[in-house]
């Protein structure tokens, strides 16, 4: 019986010209988005590879230099793009792509794409995720808003009921009738994406498992919207009203809620401005990490301790270059200051994320959005992870330079030079992103919220259809 109802629904939907046009448009948009994104990412990726090569050759070919000057000259870390970001570009447009790594200073990632684009880009790009997350729920509403209201309007509910079909079977049939057309669009796109992604060269390792999880998330998201659509359709007697209500729900959950939660998160846990942030760091650099141990005092203490440790009475007698040692200790000190302040910033970000998680109870869009970005490795967490890895590399790089100064040169010998032997001895920056297991683990609460939506909306649907009365 369920199948029969589903088939009848499907037949009706497919015969409806409106559906055919819309479905065709949506599918065409998705395919177009996939192609456009592919060419865009290939060019970005080519740029990235070239930049990486250039940065390395600049570093290796910097000529003879004092190692500390080399640490000042520094190098760049470039954020890689991942295969699935072709489907969901996430926040990549709004986070910088390169980090300048130099002595004494942790820099923010520079050159976010959105800064070089006009405000037009704030409308969003036609990327696959735009269609998947905004447009397909609308399509679901369009297909299903009159599932039940139509029966009321045509007085066919009585006929149906006289066949002895139970309410939940009717609902299940109708549910499939709405959901199968969506699958007919999404599944081919999934296959197409899999073929696309496995054929792009030089594009990092592509994981079919991750792609499947990504589509799994979207399937759950669509199931939630299908449930909501049928609930509303079952509650109303007039198709018009059902449609307007559903549209309202869509606007609130997909357009308004993300912005409203942003406003709340920003009010409750504001980020410092760039200048404030830098000033706080500068303040700590001046006053010392805990506010009462300035570095110049700390370094005097260190000098005494070191002299005592090596049993000598002047820094000239130390078995290493004191300047290099002191420089490295200072570097550790500033690295700690940066760590502290970035940790504070991270706390703010974590608190903001909590706001988004709380407001996700009002919008299935939010958990789906966050999961999709996370699996595509284009979310804010991925950016943090990259920035932290770059910072780690920076500390190591500067440490090696100071180490060379400390161990290979004499105190006071500021003309001491190193060459490409040392530069090549520093390994290139190779970033390994977090594993999918770690990503899913981190996003457990988003997944739970999304599943919560699925469960709650299914239960409500079940309750509502059981109450449909034939009048």
């Amino acid at each position, binding site marked *: 019986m369920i199948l029969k109802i589903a088939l009848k629904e499907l037949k009706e939907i497919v015969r409806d010209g*409106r559906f055919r046009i*819309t479905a065709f448009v949506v599918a065409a948009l998705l395919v177009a*988005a996939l192609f456009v994104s592919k060419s*865009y990412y290939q*060019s970005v990726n080519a*740029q990235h590879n*070239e*930049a990486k090569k250039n940065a390395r050759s*600049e570093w290796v070919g*910097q000529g003879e230099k004092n190692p500390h000057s080399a640490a000042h*000259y520094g190098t*760049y870390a*470039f954020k890689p793009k991942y295969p699935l970001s072709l489907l969901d570009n996430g*926040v990549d447009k*709004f986070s910088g792509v*390169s980090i300048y790594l130099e002595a004494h200073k942790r820099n*923010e990632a*520079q*050159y*976010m*794409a*959105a800064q*070089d*684009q*006009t*405000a*037009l*880009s*704030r*409308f*969003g*790009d*036609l*990327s696959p995720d735009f269609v998947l997350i*905004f*447009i397909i729920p*609308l399509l679901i509403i369009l297909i299903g808003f009159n599932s039940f209201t139509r029966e009321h309007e045509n007085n066919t509910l009585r006929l149906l009921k006289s066949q002895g079909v139970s309410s939940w079977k009717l609902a299940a049939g109708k549910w499939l009738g709405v959901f199968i057309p969506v699958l007919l669009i999404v599944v081919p796109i999934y296959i197409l994406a899999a073929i696309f992604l496995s054929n792009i060269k030089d594009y990092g390792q592509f994981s079919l498992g991750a792609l499947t999880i990504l589509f799994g998330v979207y399937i759950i998201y669509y199931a939630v919207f299908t449930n909501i659509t049928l609930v509303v359709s079952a509650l109303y007697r007039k198709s*018009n009203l059902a*449609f307007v209500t559903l*549209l309202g729900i869509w*606007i609130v959950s997909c*357009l*308004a809620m*993300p*912005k409203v*939660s*942003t*406003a709340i*998160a*920003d*009010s409750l846990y*504001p*980020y410092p*401005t*760039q*200048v404030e942030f830098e000033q706080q760091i500068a303040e700590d650099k001046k006053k010392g990490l805990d506010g009462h141990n300035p570095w110049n005092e700390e370094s005097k203490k260190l000098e005494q301790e070191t002299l005592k440790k090596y049993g000598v009475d002047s820094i000239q007698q130390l078995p290493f270059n004191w300047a290099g040692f002191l420089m490295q200790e200072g570097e550790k000190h500033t690295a700690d200051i940066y760590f502290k302040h970035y940790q504070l910033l991270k706390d*703010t970000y974590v608190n*903001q994320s909590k706001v988004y998680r709380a407001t996700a109870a009002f919008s299935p869009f939010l958990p789906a959005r966050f999961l999709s970005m996370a699996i595509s490795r284009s979310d*804010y967490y991925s*950016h943090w992870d990259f920035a932290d890895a770059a910072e780690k590399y920076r500390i190591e790089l500067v440490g090696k330079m100071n180490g060379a100064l400390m161990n290979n040169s004499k105190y006071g010998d500021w003309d001491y030079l190193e060459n490409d032997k040392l530069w090549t001895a520093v390994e290139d920056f190779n970033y390994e992103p977090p594993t999918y297991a770690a990503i899913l683990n981190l996003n457990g609460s988003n997944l739970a919220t999304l599943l919560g939506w699925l469960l709650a909306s299914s239960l409500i649907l079940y309750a509502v259809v059981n109450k449909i009365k034939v009048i």
Partner: protein
Amino acid sequence: MLNHNIKYEWITLVREKWIVILLLLFFSITLFAVRNGNEKVEDRNLSITKEQEKVVKLDAEFTADIDSVTRKLKSPPKKTWLDPRSLSNIAWDAPRVVAMEAVPLALVSTGQSDLFTHYAKPKIYGEAYTLGFSELSNPVQLLFGSFDLAFVCIYLLPLLVLAFSYNILSADKESGVLKLTFSQPVSVYQWLLSKLALRYVILSSIVMISVVAALLFYGVSVADNFSAVVKLFALVLSYMLFWFLVAFVVNLFGKSSGNNAVTLVSVWVVMVLLIPSVISQLSNTLYPVPSRINMIHQYRVAEAEADKNANEILKTYYRDHPELAPKDTTKENQYAWILSYFASSELVNNSVKPILDKYDKALAKQQTWVDNLRFLSPAILLQNSLNDLAGTSTAHYADFRNQVIVFADVWKGYFKPRMFANEVMKAEEMKELPKHTYNTESVKNHFASDLAGMIFFVLIILAGSWTVYRRYTATGILNA
């Protein structure tokens, strides 16, 4: 007849409570939106004020210190770089705040303001063009965007228009009133247009009242910013007119209410969501932004090359700038170390400038192209013009960046010749330090062309409505 029509329409509307609901709904949304915009603007102004207060305080300290040392009340520190009279000290430690103060209507549209910093403090050392102008922010917030008045007007207002007008003809048709109406000597076109006109006037009033009330509530004087507010309403009301006319055309087809609702929503999705995002994506592909990371490489190569020669260049520098050469060669210049920096930085600047200029030119060209694409959708036109009014467009930030670079030169220009002359600062001179005033004069204003574009859309729809009327409505409206 038409007067009667409008009168009864008014009575029905008032009795339906639609107007009250709309007013309350729109007013609360507007208030929330303006509140969000206002919060951002207040943060922005507050951080600028804080910085400026710091400068005033620091100036007072410097003035007092200089005064004490000059009058020998305090002995000068042994190291020059700690001497309050040292020009290099002031040029480095007491930089001015070059701020981009919010224009009065900034709270209307967040625009690009969440991406950029609103002040910079160029110093004697370092180049202003290398300053990062990024604001620290959670990119998720940038992705989701702000719930500001611009969002309400661009996205939500059309939906209110559509909800208010999707079934004007169809409802009467479905209830059978239409036949009665047309037993009177009145044309469907005029009848429908007059009904819509009434609704347009009502909704416009609601919008104007809500926006004015919200602006006043958040302390924006409408009287002082009269012309900007008029421009705002001209844009928003013509955008609304466009959407009313879209509803008008769809009504004229004479389909059922449900059909109209679905069609109108599809039009909204296409106009507000799809066209802008397609254009945005296309512009990335057709006119790609020149590569920044490639530019960094060229910059670094040129910089390294120039650096190699930089050590030897102070002599040639004096050859190029004889006016700066020391007059009294017997006395050692206390700023010697920074003077050689000036010389080397000029060399580096000259070699990287062509690269930066080339990049900026390519970027400006790309943005001009993309800017012209705004005429493809009224939603983009409105967004662009609201950002213009709020002073938050990309162009405003690019212009501000230029103002910072120009001021950085003014700042250096004040100290440079005096350092070469080995002078020191006098207390009374602290008041004469160069200052920056932000102005938006050099940012091109698109108001006229944006409004013209919007009116063009209105006229196209109006022309289309007449065709639809002749073809569909006049012949088939009373059937069925």
